[in-house]
Structure formats: C-alpha cells, structure tokens
C-alpha cells in the first residue's frame, strides 16, 4: 500500500515537474526531489523482502493492460535512479542555470523530469509493449538532454551517434519482445524459466541491451555522448542510463532461460570491456571521455559478475555464482555513485575552466579544494581501492570467481582469464585516475583559464557530498546494503534466495572501517608532526633546475604513453611529430590522437560502404523519364519471373 502511494506520488511529482520545469525552476526542484524521494521510498519499502509489489489494471495502453511490478531487482535500480536523479537535479540548478543558458536551461529541466519518469517506468512495467514504449521514451529524453546545447556542432554529432546507436539497439529489442510475444502469445512479462525454446532470444536481448549498456564492441556512442553532454546529464547517463541496459540483461536473463553459451559470451564480453575500456580511458586527453571509457570498463566488471552467475546457474546452481552476481549488483550501485560523483567533479572543473582537455589544466586543487577532494575520493573508489565501495563489489566478484577456480569447476578455464583481466583492468584504472587527478588538480596550472578557475557553488557541492557519502557508506558498512542485493539476487534466481550474509562481508566492513580511521588519523597526525617539525616551502626540486615552467610538467599523453603503448594494437594512436633539429632547434611538435577505434576503423568504413551503395542506387533516380518507365517494365519482368518460378515449383 505504501509502495503504491509512494509510486503515485513520484509519478505525480515528476509529471508535474515536466509541466512546471520550463517556467518555475524552484517548484520544479522541489517536485523532482519529492519524486525522487518518493521513488527511493518505494524502492526501500520493497527491499526488505517478498512479496513483490504488483499492480494489474484493466486500463489499456496500446491495447495491452497496464501491469506494473516492483521486485528486488527493479527496486535496486530504482533506488540508484532516484538518488542520482535527485542529486543531478540539484546539481543542474547550479551547473546549468538560466542565467548562463537562457534557451536550454528550461528545456533541460523538463527533459530531466521526463527522463527520470521514463526510466522509472522502464523499471516498473511488466509488459513487453510498455517496456518498449518506456525504453524508447527514455532514449529520446536522454537524446534531448545530451543535445541540450544544440548550438554546438560536436554536441549534435555526438547526440546523433547516440540516437542512432540506441535505435539500432532498440531494433534488436523490437525483435526480442515481438518474438517473445509471438512465442508466448502474450506481451505480458514475467518468469518464463521453463520455456526452453525461448533461450536463443537471449542473444537479441544481449545485443539490444548491450548497446545501451556500452559493452565493448557496441560502445561506439558512449564516449562522445558522455563527453559532450552537460555534466549532470553525463552523470545520470553514466551512472544510471547505461545501467538500464544492465537491468535489461539481468531482468531477462533472470526471467527467461538462456542458451548454454550465454555465460561464456557474457563473461568474455565483460572481460574485454573491462580491459579494453580502461585501456582506452587511459589514453584519453579529454577528462570526460576518460570517465566515459571508464564506464565501459565498469560495465565490463558488472558483466564479468553476471557471466559468472550465468555459468554457475547453468552448471548446477553453484553457490559461488550468488556471490558473483551480488558483486555485480552491488557494483551497479557503486559505479552509479562514484561515476556520478566524478562527472559532477568534471562538470565543476569544466564550469570553472571551460575546457575538457587535461593538458590545459593543472594545479586546480588550490582554487577548487572541494572538487579536488571529492575527485580524489571518487578516483580511489573507481580504481577499486579499499576502503571505499568500488573495492567491496569487485572483491565480491573476485571472491565468487576465485571460488569457482578453487572448486576446480569445469569452466574454470573461462573464469581464470577473466579474473586476471579484471586485475589488470583494476591496475590500469588506478593508472588512469592517478593521471586524471594529477593532470587536472595537481602541479602548476598549465593555462590561464586553469589558473583563474574558481570553486563551484553550494548547489553543486551538495550533491557531490551526498554521492561521496554513499561511496564511503557502502565502503565501510557493506553489510547494511546486503539485504537489498540479496533480495535482487533471489529475484534473479530463486534458488539463491537467502538473506544470509556471507560472513567475510562483515569482517571486510570492519577492516575498512578500521583502515579508514587509521588513514584519517595517520594523515592528520603526519600533518601535525610536520608542522611541529617545521615546514618550509620551496621550489619543486626537479633535479636542481632553477626555472621550471608549467609546461615542463609531465603531460597527459606522456603519462599514458607507457601503458597505452601495450594496447596500441587496438588504440591505434596517430602521431604527428616534428623532432628538434640542428644545434639550435627552433621548435618541435608532437601531436598524438587516440581515435575511437571501433567507430573510426570498423563502423565508419562499413558505413561508408553502405553510403557508396546508397550513392550508386540514388544515381538511378536521375530524372530521365524513359528510364523510369523502363524500371516499371523491369519490375513487371522481375515479378513475372518470380511468379513463374513460384508457380512452377
């Protein structure tokens, strides 16, 4: 009952938010926050345990009765959506104000509420037709949010790429849901685990949802869309929207039977996404692009967990699969929290300096201490380091997978490479975020805008604080969040439904807590000690060079160069170099660009091929009437031959 009331409240508040967004920013903020809070409340009210909240109505939409359902799995995503959605709404007030963006700020607010509403509906509806409706509305809302600043060409290009890729995914989902409806005779969704004949549909769902999730070879839209969108939009795209793809995969791999090879493929895709995603991230100079590629990595981590769970489920419900799946689910939350936090930080840097290029920044900690601090925290979390949340979920996935190896399960050979690649991805993430943090916030400012930056306002800092608190809370007290995850695991596979906390989770939490306290204490103590001993400021020593300039600092490209070099087979960086010549060299240039390999070296040639065909075909419409009549005659002849063949055979 409360769930229903809260959901209605959320619906009404968000719908009112859409209506008022354009004119009344204050009311809009209150409404959106109310809606988010209500949705969060609804999610929390379902989490403690069964039964699911379910509502069937005779009300027909598109000829199908409305059927809503909120179970543990969707509640998990709904909670994430409401937290990031609410935080982003507040952030947007500071980041994208009417004063700076008179044309788009009002539109942005309405779209924001619409996005939250449509994503919420994706999570709630339990009918294939309605799922497609909500899904596509969410895609379109996200498109208009990404292209909020339509005056810039690259924004439009990025938005189009997103829209086109999403539509390709949606077309797969068209096929998926329609085949499902055709096979089962109904659009209604629900557990259909016994229909073994539905298993091959998993591939369609994987492709369709994979595009949205940004799984490695399908991620082409993701970097540019995340980079060019306003940062609060990037945050919700990366933190929540791509998770909708994960939700789809989880939902339908849970409800439908899957083919035998699903586990291998998913874990393989996950490992590839994790490793290659972070390799691409490392090579970026644009910090929002770096964050975007890092999302590809984290989706990979989640898929490794899901793939492990699929393998375990298909091989006798091995209990370790439960742990891997729980890790993946928790990572959904974790990534949502720290990636949104990082995008908020990125937004505040962009806001203050106007550039996304790390090689034009530096030394921002002095003017933006809060942002720098939150970014550092987010970096530790995203690199999967203890004692923050990123480690907890990765640790659970590791634990599940290593259990599989330790048990000598027959498919250990697939799990072992995944574990090793996960470890390498973790180390690369550390490198990538050391680079990002260092290039943006540390050292000396490399350009004037960086030197003249300013700290962001309270409206932007507040949401960051909330998300940072979530990161810390999940890090030091994962047990508190376990019931929600366990419930979702149970919904995915009833055989694993159990509230029992895996013992080491508590210990890990305590260890993290102790570590956090020790770290804080050690840091403060060292500072006091140093102050006590006497602190002198001096020039950076730099091997005795007395006149360093900001341009002599290590650059973004050189930082990534070493590790990115190992991946040059796929990164395919292009390089323009003019070496210094002679005794008194005049100048030297080194330009390096990392292309979007999948886009530029795979998709665009294929697209060019299609366009060549199109151009050739379009030449047929050359304006000469005689030929047009010839086409009619040709059509007649072709159909005649077809009919002749048909009637003979």
């Amino acid at each position, binding site marked *: 009952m409360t769930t229903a009331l809260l959901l209605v409240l959320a619906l009404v508040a968000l719908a009112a938010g859409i209506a008022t967004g354009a004119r009344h920013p204050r009311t809009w903020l209150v409404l959106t926050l109310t809606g988010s809070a209500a949705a969060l409340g609804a999610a929390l009210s379902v989490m403690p345990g069964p039964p699911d909240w379910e509502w069937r109505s005779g009300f027909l939409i598109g000829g199908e009765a409305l059927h809503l359902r909120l179970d543990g799995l969707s509640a998990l995503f709904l909670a994430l959506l409401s937290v990031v959605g609410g935080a982003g709404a507040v952030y947007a007030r500071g980041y994208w104000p009417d004063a700076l963006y008179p044309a788009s700020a009002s539109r942005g607010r309405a779209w924001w509420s619409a996005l939250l509403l449509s994503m919420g509906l994706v999570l709630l509806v339990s009918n294939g037709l309605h799922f497609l409706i909500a899904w596509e509305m969410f895609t379109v809302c996200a498109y208009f949010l990404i292209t909020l600043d339509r005056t810039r060409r690259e924004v439009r290009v990025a938005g189009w790429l997103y829209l086109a890729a999403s539509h390709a995914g949606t077309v797969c989902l068209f096929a998926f849901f329609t085949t499902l409806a055709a096979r089962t005779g109904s659009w209604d969704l629900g557990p259909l685990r016994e229909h073994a004949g539905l298993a091959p549909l998993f591939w369609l769902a994987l492709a369709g949802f994979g595009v949205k999730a940004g799984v490695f070879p399908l991620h082409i839209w993701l970097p540019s869309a995340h980079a060019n969108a306003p940062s609060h939009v990037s945050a919700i795209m990366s933190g929540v929207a791509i998770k909708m793809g994960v939700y789809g995969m989880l939902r339908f791999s849970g409800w439908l039977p899957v083919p035998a090879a699903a586990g291998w493929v998913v874990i393989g895709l996950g490992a590839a996404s994790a490793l290659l995603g972070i390799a691409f991230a490392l090579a970026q100079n644009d910090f929002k692009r770096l964050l975007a590629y890092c999302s590809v990595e984290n989706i990979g981590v989640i898929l490794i967990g899901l793939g492990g769970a699929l393998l375990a489920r298909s091989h006798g419900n091995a209990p370790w699969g439960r742990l891997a799946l729980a890790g993946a689910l928790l990572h959904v939350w974790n990534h949502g929290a720290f990636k949104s936090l990082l995008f908020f930080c990125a937004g505040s840097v962009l806001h203050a300096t106007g550039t996304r290029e790390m090689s034009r920044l530096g030394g921002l900690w002095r003017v933006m201490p809060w942002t720098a601090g939150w970014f*550092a925290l987010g970096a530790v979390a995203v690199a999967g380091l203890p004692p923050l949340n990123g480690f907890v979920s990765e640790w659970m996935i590791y634990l599940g997978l290593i259990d599989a190896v330790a048990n000598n399960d027959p498919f250990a050979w697939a799990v072992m490479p995944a574990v090793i690649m996960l470890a390498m991805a973790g180390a690369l993430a550390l490198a990538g975020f050391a680079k990002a943090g*260092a290039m943006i916030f540390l050292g000396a400012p490399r350009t004037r805008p960086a030197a003249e930056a300013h700290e962001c306002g309270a409206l932007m800092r507040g949401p960051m604080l909330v998300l940072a608190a979530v990161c810390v809370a999940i890090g030091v007290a994962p047990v508190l969040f376990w019931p929600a995850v366990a419930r979702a695991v149970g919904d995915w596979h009833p055989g694993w439904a159990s509230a029992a906390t895996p013992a080491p989770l508590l210990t*890990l939490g305590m260890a993290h807590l102790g*570590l956090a306290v020790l770290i804080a204490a050690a840091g403060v103590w060292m500072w006091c000690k140093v102050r006590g001993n006497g602190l002198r400021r001096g020039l950076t020593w730099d091997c005795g060079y007395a006149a360093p300039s900001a341009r002599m600092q290590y650059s973004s490209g050189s930082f990534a160069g070493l590790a990115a070099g190992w991946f040059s087979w796929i990164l395919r960086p292009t390089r323009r170099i003019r070496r210094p010549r002679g005794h008194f060299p005049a100048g030297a240039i080194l330009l390096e660009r990392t292309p979007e390999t999948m886009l530029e070296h795979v998709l665009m040639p294929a697209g060019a091929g299609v366009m060549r065909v199109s151009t050739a075909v379009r030449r047929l419409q050359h304006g000469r009437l005689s030929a047009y009549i010839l086409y009619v005659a040709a059509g007649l002849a072709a159909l005649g031959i077809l009919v002749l063949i048909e009637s003979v055979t």
Partner: protein
Amino acid sequence: MIPILQLLLRLGCWLLLAPLLPGIINKVKAWVAGRRGPPVLQLYYDLAKLWKKGVVMSTLASPAFVMLPAVAWVAVFGAAMLVPLGPAGAGLSFRGDALLMLYLLALARFCTAWAAMETGSAFEGMGAVREVSYAVLAEAAMVAAVLSLSVQTGSISLVTMLAPSVGACAGLLAAGLFIVLLAENCRVPFDDPNTHLELTMIHEVMVLDHSGPPLAAILHGAAMKLLLFAVVLAQAVLPMDHLRPLGAAGLLAGSVLLVTVAVGLVESLLARFAFRRVPLLLTTAFLLCLFALLVAWKGGMP
C-alpha cells in the same frame, strides 16, 4: 591479555624487523663487492634522524603531499597485518583477505603516485607513470599466483592458502614471485635503489621531493613491503604446516633471510635492465605464475 601480547609481538615483528632487510641487502652487496659497507642498522639511524627533521615542501604541493606518505604507510601496514607469520597466523584473517592485501598495496601505490604528482616535477611524473604502469603486469602476476595458490588449497584466505603448500608448481611460483618482489620493491634489475638522480628510476624518483617524517614513513613502508613480499614468498613455497611452531618460525625467518640475501646477490651480480626490457621481465614473471596456475589446476584435476 594473550591477544594483546600477540598483537604487540606482531607489531614488533613488522615494525621493528622490517628496516633490517635493506640493511642486510646492503651488507651483502658490500660483501660481494669487497667493501665494508654501511652498518646493518643504518636504516634505523636514518629513520630516527628523518623523524626529527623539518620538511621542505614544493610551493605547488598541497597538504596531501605530506599526508599521503602516512596513508600509504597505513595501507602497507594494513596489508602486513593480513599476512600470516608462520605459526602465529595473521592479525586478521577472513575469506578473500588475499585480495584485500593486493589492493591495499595498490592503495599505497596510488598514494605515492598522487603525492609524486603534487610537485609538478617532470621527473616525479616519470616515476609515477612507470610505477603505475608496471604495476599492471605485476598485478596480473600476483593475481595469477593467488589463483594458483587457491586452486591448490581450495581457499582464498591467506592463512590457509599459504600454510600447506608445495605442489608441483612451487618452483615456478617461487621464480615468478621473486621477480615480482624485485619489481615491486624497486630492486635491481628493475630499479636501482642506490641512486636518486637517474632519469631511469622508477620508485625512487617519485620520492625526490619528500623530506623529514614523510620520507621516513616512505622508507619504513618500503622496508615493510619488502618484508611482506619475502614472507609471502617464503610461505607460498615452503611446507610449514607439519612443523612445530618454533621450527616453523625458524624456517620462516631463515627463508626470509635467504630471500634477502638472494636479493642482495642479484643486485650485486646483475646490472639494471634497459627500460624496454622491464615489461619483458614482468611478463616472464606473469607467465611463470600462469604456468604455476596451470600446473596446479591440471595437477589438481581428478
């Protein structure tokens, strides 16, 4: 009463004995070179001196510059608490602690690299890059080692993983982990701990700007890390579960000493490798651990 005593003992072991190892290595090197060398306790003197000194900090650096070495030290210390000391067991042991240990070391690495980048110095940047990049390969090797140990023992807890041991893969594992030890602890042939001014340095170049207590924390942390690796290596390879506690402790101490001497000998006999060969060597370490894993896995199959 007993737990407190145990804790104190463990602390003593890790905190007090660790700085001994670099001293021993230096002594071995001096001995091979026919010099007298610095006293074995030299690091203790250095630490004590540094602890009392004031700090010079780059104008570009934030307060984090002095705090992060302490954080890194805490991380290494936390990792050490997870490592069992032979019969004494670990300070904290639970399923999956091996991963926590690895990631705590990673946290320490992150803090050091971050602190290095604070100064805006190109040299320190260079060091940080190498540190975080080579760690990718080292991490892969270490995870492969963890996997092979857990295949052998069916566990992911360091205490059980390291206790019985000796499978067919012990030799491979020993070689692999020894290389990782050299790499992670900035020893020759990866790095030369004797110089601080080379462009070709890794770890050492990152701490160029540190001074006073933070530098002490770094040096002590490094020593502790060396000890940690030596202990892990020794226990991963040696069968100690059926020895009596004292015997096991003795064996552990002896083998740690052996590892230390071996490091010293390697440093005396080898020159530092050219940089492009470093990944090669680390890949070798990774492959050794991977082979160990395969041997353990296939060997363990019924």
